[in-house]
């Protein structure tokens, strides 16, 4: 095993035009040449399972039940995203939903009806391996009681083709925290892995102080990241902020997916946390896609992020969806 191999090279995140967050392709770069093969074999020996290439999709903030303004289209972007993923020539292995599946309601029976409606739309996906975490709109009012009866546990972990996935709940206590019990669970969960284990965390709120004044933070996020600090290869996927965001913190990369309902502005440009207005001429503006590709700068792998705006044929009179599908096929 050559010392020049960068273990972080093994996890390739390649986004494509989905209008639904991002499609992540894992492992393709690592297996592409002899260096990559040697790396995956090493990781396989260290971590118990060799990584084999696969892809997955992230959806976020579908807010089923929300009705405009600012977005009068309800579940249209969500449904369009499902159709788009179904049309991919190569189906992803799994789909992760990073919270706010539904919009909260205190009307009797309505919260459950919205969760069932969400399940009906998500159930149209050809991919049946769906994983969820709650957002505060799903689980913030009742401590996650209803969510658990419909979707199951709010935090859990699983392994898939050599990658360890961790679902974290930073919403169901009302406040943006995981709490000591979940932190203890996480510590125990991580204990069996070697430092080289590739880890994907998915959660709703950012695990770092992105904009506390807009509640874009997790109170004990530092403790989570300290537990993850020994690991060489950590990717955190989250939602909540209704816009794409990319933040590198040491060895960990934090990536936010766009929403499928409406977008928030850039907090660096305004203090006013007000959704961006609906534009009938471009109804899915800012609900677009993120393409992430791996490039190499010398020996160092670099992730390139390319944003593509989603448009709708029905409302804008364009063929935007078709253009996006064409882009996806080229992967």
């Amino acid at each position, binding site marked *: 095993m050559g010392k020049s191999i960068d273990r972080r090279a093994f996890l390739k995140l390649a986004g494509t035009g989905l209008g639904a967050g991002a499609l992540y392709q894992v492992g393709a770069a690592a297996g592409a040449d002899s260096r990559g093969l040697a790396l995956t074999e090493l990781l396989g020996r260290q971590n118990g399972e060799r990584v084999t290439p696969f892809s997955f999709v992230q959806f976020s903030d579908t807010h089923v039940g929300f009705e405009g303004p600012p977005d009068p289209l309800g579940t249209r972007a969500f449904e369009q995203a499902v159709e788009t993923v179904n049309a991919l020539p190569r189906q992803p292995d799994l789909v992760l939903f990073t919270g706010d599946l539904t919009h909260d309601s205190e009307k009797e029976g309505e919260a459950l009806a919205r969760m069932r409606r969400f399940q009906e739309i998500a159930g149209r996906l050809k991919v049946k391996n769906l994983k969820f975490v709650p957002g505060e709109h799903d689980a*913030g009012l009742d401590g996650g009681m209803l969510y658990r009866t419909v979707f199951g546990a709010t935090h859990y972990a699983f392994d898939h083709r050599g990658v360890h996935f961790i679902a974290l709940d930073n919403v169901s206590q009302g406040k943006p925290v995981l709490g000591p019990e979940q932190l203890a669970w996480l510590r125990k969960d991580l204990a069996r892995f070697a430092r080289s284990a590739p880890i994907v965390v998915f959660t709703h709120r950012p695990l770092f102080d992105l904009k506390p004044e*807009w509640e874009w933070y997790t109170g004990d996020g530092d403790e989570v990241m300290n537990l993850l600090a020994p690991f060489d290869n950590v990717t955190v996927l989250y939602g909540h902020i209704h816009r794409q965001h990319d933040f590198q913190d040491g060895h960990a990369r934090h990536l936010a997916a766009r929403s499928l309902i409406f977008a928030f502005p850039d907090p660096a440009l305004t203090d006013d946390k007000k959704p961006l207005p609906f534009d009938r001429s471009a109804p899915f503006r800012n609900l677009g896609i993120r393409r992430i590709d791996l490039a190499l700068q010398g020996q160092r792998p670099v992730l390139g992020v390319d944003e593509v705006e989603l448009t709708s044929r029905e409302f804008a009179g364009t063929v935007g969806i078709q253009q996006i599908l064409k882009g996806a096929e080229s992967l």
Partner: protein
Amino acid sequence: MKTTTTVLAAALLACGWLPGQTPASPKVITITARRFAYSPPEVRLKQGETVTLVLKSADVTHGMLCRALKIDSDIPPGQETRVTVTPLKAGDFTAICNHFCGPGHGNMKMKFIVE
């Protein structure tokens, strides 16, 4: 012990305290949280002056987060939550509700103006 008493008395005299008086208690300001606003929506504070905030909820559990003033508290209904604040810096500081309380939660906020 005598030395400690002397130093304390000297410190109080330096602050304008006269023998026979009790040291002034911090000013108390009551703030009531109600879905989805605080009352009053603005509170003026003085730089360096310690105040006690009495936080109450008129309905469900709310929260208050203001990092600049080191406030991070839950506000459950039916009780008073007391927070002592000494602003060190002048400026306008936004406090938000950080305990999810319903559909208007995302914009439930107030302002502390420190002069």
